[in-house]
């Protein structure tokens, strides 16, 4: 399933979607950025509640399919702009991280 399809199906709000056709091939959940940097895999959807600009760098480095911000976490506009410029998809949802993981598990 692509990031755009997933966002649509689960009514997630799109904060940044420069690459809507990216295929989601797995998931990773975590908030300690150095840990995520070493363990998340390319093409996974990364679920987090962190919202500082470093998440865009980590997502770019790991090359995840998208960041999914749980519990209605939002980004400052400058960070959203940076995500678009760096080609990082970012979605946000009111659901807690566990529920997002359950949604993901149905689709991959």
């Amino acid at each position, binding site marked *: 399933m692509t990031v755009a399809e997933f966002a649509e199906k689960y009514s997630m709000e799109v904060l940044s979607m420069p690459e809507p056709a990216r295929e989601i091939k797995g998931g990773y959940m975590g908030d*300690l*950025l*150095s*840990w995520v*940097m070493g363990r998340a895999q390319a093409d996974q959807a990364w679920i987090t509640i962190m919202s*500082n*600009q*470093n998440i*865009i*760098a*980590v997502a*770019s*480095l790991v090359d995840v399919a998208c960041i999914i911000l749980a519990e209605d976490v939002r980004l400052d506009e400058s960070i959203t702009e940076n995500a678009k410029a*760096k080609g990082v998809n970012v979605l946000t949802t009111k659901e807690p991280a566990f529920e997002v993981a359950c949604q993901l598990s149905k689709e991959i």
Partner: protein
Amino acid sequence: MKELSLNILDIAENSVKAKAPLTQIILTESEDLLTIEIIDNGCGMTSDIVKKVIDPFYTTRTTRKVGLGIPFFKMEAEQTGGTFEIESKAESEFPNDHGTKIKATFHKDHIDFIPLGDVVSTVTTLIQGHPDSDFLFRHVTPKGEVFLDTREIKNELGGVSLAEYEVIKWIEEYIKEQYQSI
């Protein structure tokens, strides 16, 4: 990172890469605050580069497009309600007084405070990896102080390398003993 000592190691490695003859790591603790300063007399950076190193998409390495040592350290301080400062003087502009100073203050009682961790390993790893550079380590706590200056040790040892196993073991024990006595 799971321990601040790993951040200190990462940042002090930048000092060594900046060809600093001396890198100082100074930890100052009060009841509720921890201040970490990493001060070097290396080649320093221009103000343009200083702005970039806080940006997670900058790195001096060429293998990847993002450098996260300083952005993570800044975030970890700020997420405790603390502060982060960086000052640098480039050798090209200040030939006699150059280097970089990083200062981060952490609120230890904040729930998002990351523990300091094994700072003794950080210091011994730096010394063993870079025996020709000098390091000054000072950890001031309300109960007392831990201190090590590799220049003093080199004076005592004559020409023996600090990377020798016996020497590095002795340095490790020397710091640990100081911690035990405070």
